[in-house]
C-alpha cells in the first residue's frame, strides 16, 4: 500500500517499547500540583483560595485572556496553597497545590443534550468550559482553533494520530482502546465546522490502529483513515497537512490559511468526554518508557501528579538515567526535577541511560548540507545559524527563520553535533523581542 509523505525529515529508531502494553489507571496521589500555565497564552487566574474545599471536576482557574484556558481540579480535597512550583518548562511557575482527601467527590457533570442537533456555539462553549487544549504537546486552546476568523474558510479537518516521536505510544493505545471516543470527537468537530468529511492520519507503523479504525468506519462515509509514511516529523501540523492534502501552509501562516484544522487524537477523546459526559479535562495518557525504566508502561494519570509517582508505578529505574525527557525525545524538554507535575501536554516520560545521551561538544560545520536536505520546510539551518551567531537575526528572519517548526531534525542529523535547533530557538526569541520593541 502506498503511504503518503512529505519532503525532508529524519528516521530515528522507533523504540515503541510500550505499543502492546494496555493503559493502566494510576491512583491519584496525596498531593496534586496543578500549574496555572498548562496552555499557550496568558496564565489562568485562580478561582479558589488557600483552605477552600474543591470537588473533582470543579473549575479552579479561569482563562486569563482570549488565548487561555479553564483548569479543573483532578481530585476532591483542600487547596493547600498557591505558590510557584517546579514546572516542566524549566522554571518554577505559580501552581495550585491541592491535598487529596481520597473521596473523589465529583461535581455534577452536565453533558450537552443531543449534540448532533446542537448549535456549534453551544458545543464550542462546552469545549472551552472543559478546559481543553491541544494535547499533542503544543497546548493551543482548542476552542480558539475551532473559531477561525471569518476571512478563513475551513474545508478540511485532519486528526493527528501519527505519534511520530520515538518511544511514545500514548496516542496509539488511545486509538486502540477508545476508538469510539476518537471518532465521536471528530464527528463533533465536523458538526461545529459544518463539514461533511474528516481525515485521521496514522503512521504505517501502527497497522493495528489503522485496521481497527478502518473497521469502525467501514460503513461511514464521513471519516477517512489515511496511511502515512513512517518518518519524523510526520506529526507536525504543517507536514501532516502536506502529506494528507498536498497543500502548503504559507510562510508565517497558520493551518487555517490553507483551510485546514489539525487536532490530536487525545484532544478528540477529551472533546467526546466533555460533550457526551460533561467531563472536563482532568487526566491523560502518559507513556513512561526508556531504557532506564524497569517496566515501561502506558498510564492514565491525573493532571498534577508528580512524575516521581509515574516512575514508581513503572517499577522505578534500572540504572540512574542521564536524562528524563518530558514528551518525546525529539521535541521534549529535559526535566530537572522529579517533582514536576503531569500537565495537559505531558504525552510521555522518556528516561535515557548515559550511553544514549550525546555529550560530545560541537565541532565546526562541515558544510555537508545534511541539515538542509532533512529540513521539512526547505530552510537552510546552516546559513540561518551562522547569521544568528553573528547577531544578524533580521537577515536570518529573511531566510525563513520564523518558519522553523523546531522539530530538531537538523540537530539530530548534524554530524558535527552543532546545536542548530537551540540556535534557531534563540534567534526566534530575539526576532520576537525585536518585533515587540518596534511595535
Amino acid at each position, binding site marked *: 500500500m502506498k503511504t503518503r509523505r512529505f519532503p525532508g525529515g529524519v528516521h530515528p529508531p522507533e523504540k515503541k517499547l510500550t505499543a502492546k502494553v494496555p493503559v493502566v489507571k494510576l491512583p491519584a496521589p496525596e498531593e496534586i500540583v496543578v500549574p496555572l500555565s498548562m496552555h499557550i497564552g496568558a496564565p489562568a487566574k485562580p478561582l479558589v483560595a488557600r483552605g477552600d474545599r474543591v470537588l473533582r471536576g470543579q473549575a479552579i482557574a479561569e482563562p486569563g485572556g482570549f488565548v487561555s484556558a479553564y483548569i479543573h481540579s483532578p481530585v476532591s480535597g483542600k487547596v493547600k496553597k498557591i505558590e*510557584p512550583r517546579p514546572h516542566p*518548562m*524549566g*522554571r*518554577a511557575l505559580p501552581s495550585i497545590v491541592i491535598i487529596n482527601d481520597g473521596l473523589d467527590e465529583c461535581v455534577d457533570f452536565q453533558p450537552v443534550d443531543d449534540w448532533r442537533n446542537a448549535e456549534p456555539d453551544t458545543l464550542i462553549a462546552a469545549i472551552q468550559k472543559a478546559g481543553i487544549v491541544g494535547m499533542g504537546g503544543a497546548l493551543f486552546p482548542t476552542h480558539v482553533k475551532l473559531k477561525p476568523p471569518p476571512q478563513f474558510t475551513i474545508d478540511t479537518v485532519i486528526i493527528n494520530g501519527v505519534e511520530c516521536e520515538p518511544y511514545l505510544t500514548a496516542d496509539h493505545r488511545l486509538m486502540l482502546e477508545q476508538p469510539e471516543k476518537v471518532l465521536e470527537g471528530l464527528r463533533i468537530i465536523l458538526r461545529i465546522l459544518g463539514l461533511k468529511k474528516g481525515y485521521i492520519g496514522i503512521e504505517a507503523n501502527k497497522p493495528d490502529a489503522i485496521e481497527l479504525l478502518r473497521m469502525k468506519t467501514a460503513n461511514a462515509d464521513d471519516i477517512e483513515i489515511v496511511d502515512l509514511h513512517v518518518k519524523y516529523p510526520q506529526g507536525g501540523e504543517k507536514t501532516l497537512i502536506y502529506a494528507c492534502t498536498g497543500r502548503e501552509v504559507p510562510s508565517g501562516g497558520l493551518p487555517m490559511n490553507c483551510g485546514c484544522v489539525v487536532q490530536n487524537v487525545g484532544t478528540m477523546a477529551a472533546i467526546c468526554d466533555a460533550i457526551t459526559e460533561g467531563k472536563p479535562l482532568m487526566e491523560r495518557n502518559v507513556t513512561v518508557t526508556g531504557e532506564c525504566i524497569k517496566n515501561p508502561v502506558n498510564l492514565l494519570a491525573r493532571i498534577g501528579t508528580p512524575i516521581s509517582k509515574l516512575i514508581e508505578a513503572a517499577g522505578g529505574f534500572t540504572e540512574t538515567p542521564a536524562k528524563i525527557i518530558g514528551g518525546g525525545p525529539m521535541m521534549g*524538554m*529535559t526535566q*530537572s*526535577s522529579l517533582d514536576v507535575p503531569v500537565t495537559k501536554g505531558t504525552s510521555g516520560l522518556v528516561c535515557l541511560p548515559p550511553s544514549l545521551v550525546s*555529550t560530545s561538544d560541537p565541532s565546526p560545520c562541515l558544510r555537508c548540507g545534511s541539515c538542509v536536505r532533512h529540513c521539512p520546510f526547505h530552510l537552510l539551518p546552516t546559513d540561518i545559524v551562522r547569521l544568528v551567531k553573528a547577531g544578524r537575526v533580521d537577515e536570518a528572519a529573511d531566510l525563513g527563520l520564523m518558519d522553523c517548526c523546531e522539530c530538531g531534525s537538523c540537530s539530530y542529523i548534524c554530524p558535527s553535533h552543532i*546545536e542548530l535547533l*537551540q*540556535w534557531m*530557538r*534563540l534567534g526566534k*526569541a*530575539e526576532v520576537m523581542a525585536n518585533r515587540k520593541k518596534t511595535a
Partner: protein
Amino acid sequence: MLTAVLILSLLGLISAVGLGVASRVFYVEIDPLVEKLTEVLPGANCGGCGYAGCAGFAAALAAKEVGINDCSVADSDTKQTLARLLGVELTETAKEVAVVHCKFDPSKMQNRFEYKGVSSCKAANMLGGQLDCSYGCLGFGDCVKACNFNAIVIKDGLAEVIPEKCTSCGMCVEACPRNLIQIHSLAQKVLVLCSNKDKAKAVSSVCKIGCIACNKCVKACPVEAISMVNQIAVIDDEKCIACGACARECPTNCIFDFGETHYVAQINDKCTGCTLCALKCPAGAISGDKKQMHVVDPKKCVRCRICYDICNFESIELVNEEGKIMIPPRPKKQRKKKKDSGEAA
C-alpha cells in the same frame, strides 16, 4: 598626430573647467572643529553616548547638543583637550562603573541540571538557567562578549567588572538576559549584590547570601536611603552616605561595603550635654541628661558618623573595637568648613 594632440588637449580643458565649476557649486562646508574633535575622541565607536560612533558624537558636541561628559569612555586628559578645543570649562563628574548585582558563593551554589548546549546566557536562560537561583549570574559571558573594553571577566562562574577598565557605556547592561548589571557611581561604595525577587524562604533555600527582604537594612539606614522594591533592598545612591550601617546589619551579608573601615563613636569629657547628638542619633545609641556628659552605647552605634559631624564641642571621637582612638574629634574650624562644603554638595 596633431589632431590627436588637439583633441586630447581640448578634452583636458573641458574637464578642467567642469571640475573647477563643480568644486565651487557643490562645495560642502566641513566644520574643521568636528574633524578635530573626532580625532581627539577615543575612537572606540562603542555607541554608549547614543550616537552613531565617535564622529556622530563629535558633530553633536560641536552643535552643543551634548556635553563632554556624555562620552563615558574618554579619560580626563582627553576631556581636557576636548574642553580646550570647544573653549568651554570642564566640569568634573564622578566616574561611573557597571556593577553585577549578583555575588553568590560559587562553592555553595547548586546547579539544577548540567547544561550542555549553546554557550550563551541568553540560551541557557531560555531553559530557566542551570542555577538553583533563577535570578543569579549564569556565567556564560554574554556581557563579556558585549564589552568593547575587556572590562568584564568570568571568575568562578560569576561575571566581575574591572572598575579601572570600565567606561560605563552600558553595553553589558543590555546584554545580560537576567538584568543583573546596573551603572553606579564609582564613589558608591555600599551595594546590594543580589537580585533575587523571591520570598525569604525560597531565597535562602538556594543561596545563603541572598536578599531575604527582612527590612533590617531599611531600619538601620540613618538617612532613609534604602527601600524594598520587589523583595530586594534598593539603595538610593543620591541619599546614601556610605556609613555601612546596612551592610553590618544585613543578616545574609548580601549588602557589601567596599568603603573604608568604620569606627564606633565615643564621647570624651569635653561634652557639654547639649543633647544634639542624642537627638540626631538614628540608632538611639547616645544617652545622657541635659548638661551632663553623654554616653554612646557601642552595641547600638551604627557607625554612621552623624554625631561626629554635628558635634560643636570637639567631644566625639571614633574608636576601634579595642577602644583605641582611630579618628580624633573634628576641630571646630574644620567642622565649619566641612559643613559649608556639605551644604554646597
